[in-house]
């Protein structure tokens, strides 16, 4: 039975949605007895930028929804789901830990590799 689960989120959907689909899907994990850690790597690290948001707008008369991945991540963290941002991708985006949502841990490749080795299941998004 899967117990320790790691979700690897590589990129962002690129679609204008009120919530990032991969983050939303991972929130359902709280209904199951799993220890989930979400690992953000590649461009997905952008989701962890504190204050990152898409303001509401309009296009051709259609209202475009606002979005805040930072708020989505805070929801995950408050639900007890661990969130890690891969250090090398944080750096390559010109960010550091202070730029990220409180509670998001910045970890190097070795640490993430260890997490993956200990996991019962790994999901890739």
């Amino acid at each position, binding site marked *: 039975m899967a117990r320790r689960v790691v979700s690897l989120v590589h*990129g962002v959907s690129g679609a204008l949605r009120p919530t990032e689909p991969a983050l939303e899907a991972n929130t359902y994990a709280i209904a*199951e007895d*799993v220890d989930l850690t979400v690992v953000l790597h590649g461009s997905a690290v952008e989701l962890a930028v504190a204050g990152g948001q898409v303001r509401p707008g309009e296009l051709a008369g259609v209202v475009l929804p606002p979005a805040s991945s930072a708020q989505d991540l805070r929801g995950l963290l408050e639900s007890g789901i661990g969130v890690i941002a891969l250090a090398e991708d944080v750096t390559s985006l010109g960010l550091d830990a202070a730029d990220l949502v409180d509670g998001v841990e910045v970890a190097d490749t070795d640490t993430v590799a260890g997490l993956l080795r200990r996991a019962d299941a790994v999901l890739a998004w």
Partner: protein
Amino acid sequence: MTGRTVALLLASGVTSEHTATALKLAERLLARGHRVAVFAHGDAAGLAAGTGELPTAVTALLRRGVHDGTFDWVVDQASVERLGVAPHLTPGAVPGDHADLWAVVRHADIVLTAGGGSPW
């Protein structure tokens, strides 16, 4: 490996080699007496819809598992609606949501994600 439950999480559509390989793996696992639970979301929600070879193959896999409950195919309803394939889902494919994905993961001995990447 004897009598294990294997979860296959599919996100890519018919043109993905990862998906084709995953389905062939599912067939081999069933033949060896294991239980297979598939959760299809994103473009993969269309794999069990329509009248093409792949939906026919999925129906055949479902048929093989009907007597001993060894094969489940759950499809993300939101993805089905986004693709517009709801009226064409093969009988036996069960509409669900991401709560079902985590239930599938929780109860599996082995979890495989075919291809990875965002299903959206």
